[in-house]
Structures are given as structure tokens and as C-alpha cells.
């Protein structure tokens, strides 16, 4: 269950970061693609987390 809890905590933090980082850290007066790029990286990280989650399943 330790691995499950670790995965759950990591994925939960990742999803929270998907909201907190653009709203808390990235907004600025300078126009940029930072938010767009961050959310694209966030999507890749979500895919990574899900791949880790399903990688051990046996048939």
C-alpha cells in the first residue's frame, strides 16, 4: 500500500500544481506563452503518472 499512497499523493500534488502554478506563480504583466507551455508539460506529467499507475497490472 506504500506505493499506492505514494502514487496517490504524487498525482494529487501534480493536479493541484496544475491549478496553483498558473494562478499563483505564472501570471505576470509580460505577455508570454509560459502558461500554455506549463499546461502542456502538465498534460505530459499526467500521462506519465497514469502510465506508472497501470504499468504493474497483470492480466
Amino acid at each position, binding site marked *: 500500500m506504500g506505493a499506492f499512497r505514494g502514487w496517490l499523493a504524487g498525482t494529487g500534488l501534480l*493536479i493541484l500544481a*496544475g*491549478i496553483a502554478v498558473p*494562478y499563483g506563480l505564472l501570471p505576470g504583466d509580460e505577455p508570454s506563452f509560459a502558461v500554455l507551455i506549463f499546461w502542456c508539460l502538465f498534460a505530459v506529467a499526467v*500521462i506519465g*503518472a497514469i502510465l506508472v499507475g497501470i504499468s504493474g*497490472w497483470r492480466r
Partner: protein
Amino acid sequence: MISPVLVWGAIGAFALIGFAVAFAASRGNTGSAVDYYLGGRAIGGAVSGLSYAATTYSAFMLVVLTGLTYRGGVGALGFELIYFSGLSLVVVFGPRYWLASQTWGFVTPAEMLGRRYGSRSVARATAVVSLLFLMPYCTTQMAGIGLLLSGVTGGAITLPLAVAVGALLAIFWTLVAGLRSVAWTDAGQAAVMMVAALLAVGFVVAAIGGPGAFAERVMEERAAWLGVPGPGLWSLPTFLALSVPWFFFPLSNPQVSQRLFAVRDLRAMRSMILWVLGFGLLFTLISVVWGFAALILTPDLANSSEATPALLASGAVPVWVSLLLIVGILSAAVSTLDSIALTLGAMVARDLAGRETQEARQVFVGRLVVVLVILFAAIFAVQQASIVDQLAALSAAGLIVSVPAIVGAFFWRGGTAAGALASLVGGAALALWLALGAGISVFDPVLCGSVIAASTLLFVGVSAVTRGRPDAIDFPGELRPLLSRKAIW
């Protein structure tokens, strides 16, 4: 404007191919309820994945999400990606749903909850909540078809006629072979959606001058749209109000969670998840890029939901690609509609009418409900009733009331039938009162926050002071050895 003759030709070709696929899929049917509603629990990974994607990524994407991007900018991407991240719930609950359905033979998510808590009332309440919030949602899919076809033809294809076409396709593909025909036509429709959207977005980006020029023009002309809250729409409260209920979509929406019963094995489920991840990310990016392209090529639209018809009529997209995209959006709407109708049919046939009835009768009742649900959606889409629009907007926040009982079913032995029932009924009543009585908008996080808090507190609180039913099934205990054998957390 596109010639209605060409649009009819494209729809006709699409319908013919769909009919052929549906009839081919029907050959495997044996007439049992499990066969009709779950494809005999033998759907493979790729078809499951594409069908799941076509069901979950509806006409919303290229109509509403594009409009939200047009109106508010990059926040629409974040909102959709939080929804996308909800697929992580399938990692935890997908194998549990599948193992439970294999072990106890569940056909609907409502039936699963009812048996878990040992109460037919829980199953019935889950089915009623699903009917209440999903039927209006079907209406928005119908309205999307109507607005698109009448919009691109300048009204030559009228709203009622367009809605009738969507209704006929959805009814036919669901009636022929249940989930088999729905899944196979969904898979084909997902492919059409993706190819059409990729081509269309390629042409509009090329019309702007390529990716570099596109990025430069967005930066020069619409810099505010690149941040959050952007030009105003995506304040943090609005973002949370929309994202949080949608995050739970894989659990709260039975037309999606029922798919977890239908996969052949865990390998197919893993493959399904991979297909949905790939499709979902690509389709999300396409829809957002499409919205930004509309901002550049068709600026200053009064109504942001007209961004897609305006872009198709802008001349940037060749007519044949526009026709393909129209068919793609029609596909997105029909595939969502028929999946919802089939799931609601299964819930009425098994959870409201009763599982004791003969299998053939269950299939007959389900077919009847499919027709009624789609007719309801068609009639109200044409009438544009405001109460239906309000309920449709409320669907994500309303359906979330089932989540505490679902989580508790697998992870809390203390959950009881009374707790689940109180959570479902109390949460749904609160959602209706807040939205229709107190007039709180779905853009206000007070609505979803209150509904989540109330349904969770009711579930935990009432469960704490009541006893579980003797015929309740101990999912956490009974599934543990099976989960361990499959190396599932």
C-alpha cells in the same frame, strides 16, 4: 456558407458507412442483456478506448471549448486538462469496477452501488439522479447538431431537420446491437473526429502563415488571452467551478463508468486508457488551437459559440475539409448521445423496472427508453426550453453526488445504504435548489463546493449512525485477494 446539397451528401455517406458498421457489429449479438448493454463483456482495448473517447469528447469540444478559448483564452486549455487528469481516477477505480462486475455480474453502475450497499433504493436513486441530469445533457448535444448544420448552411438546413437527422442516427445505431453497434460506430466516429479536426486545424494555421506566424499574431493581437484569468472569463473561482465537477467525470457519469464493465480483460483496459490519453490530449490541443485561430481569422464575433461555424465559413478551410469536420462534430454529438441513451436504457430496464424480469424484456425496455430519451432530447432541443438548458449546465455538478458513495463502496467498509441514499437524494436536491431556486450559476464555485460537501457529509454522517444491510457486499474485503492477484494497488 456551405451548399446544403454538399452537407446532405456528406451526412448521407457518413450514415451509410455507419449503418454498415452497426449491422456488421450486430452479428455477434446473442440477445442477452449482458450482450446488449455490455457487448458480452468482450470489447477489445482499441475499440473500448476510441468508444470511450468518442463518448467523453462530445460536440462540446469543437463548439463550446473552442468558444471558451475564443472568449477567455488559454484558461480553457487548463480547464480541459484538469478534466483530462481525471483519467487518473480510472487507474484506481477501473480495475475495481471490472473485477466487481466480473465477480457479481453487474451491468450498470447503479446496480453495482445497490448490491454493494444491499439496497434496491440506492440503485433506484442512482438511476433517477442519472436520468435527471443526463437527459438534459443529451438535449445540448442535439442542440449542437442543430446549430452547427443550420449555421454552416445559413439556415437552409433548419434546426428541427438537423435535430431529426441526429436523432435518427443515434436511435438506429443504439437499437441495432446495443453496445456492440454503439462501440463500433463510436470507434469509427472517433477516427473521423480526429482526422477531420487535424486537417481543419492544419489548414487554418497554414492560412495564418504557419505555426510561427500564428504564435506571433496571437502574441501581438491577443496577448491577454495567453494568461489567466485572461480577458476576464477564467478567474480562479470560475476555473474551479468548472474544473472540479468535470475532474470526477469518469466516476460520476455512468455512460463512461459503465464502459469499465465491458472490456475483455485488464490488458484491454490498459490499452483503452492509453487510447483515451492519446486521443484526449491531441483533441484538446486541437480544440484550443482552433479557438485561437478563430480569434485571429474571425475576430469580434458577438457570440463565441459561433466561432466554429464562422471559421468554417471564413474560406480558410477547403469545402471538403469543412464537410469532413461537420461530419466529425456530428459524430461527436451522436456518439455521446447514443452512449448516454444506452446507459439510461440499461438503468431503467435493470434498476427501475427490476432485474427479475426476463432478459428479452430487459432489452426491450432498454430499447424503448433509448427511443424516449433521444426523442426527449430532440423535442427539447427544438423547443429550446430554458429549464432544460439550466439542468444541462448543472449536469456535471449534479452527477457528482454519486461520487462519495462510489469512493466509499471500494474504500470504506463503514458506508451504509442509508448513508448512500442520503448522499444521493440530499446532494441532488441541494444542487437543484441552488441552481434553480437560489439562482446560483454553475460558474460560481459555491454551487459545486456545496454539493460536494453536502453529499460527502451526508454519506459519512448518516453512515456513522446507521448499520449496514446484512446483504451488502464487502467490496474492500472480497476484492482484495483478486486485486493482489492482478498486482493492482
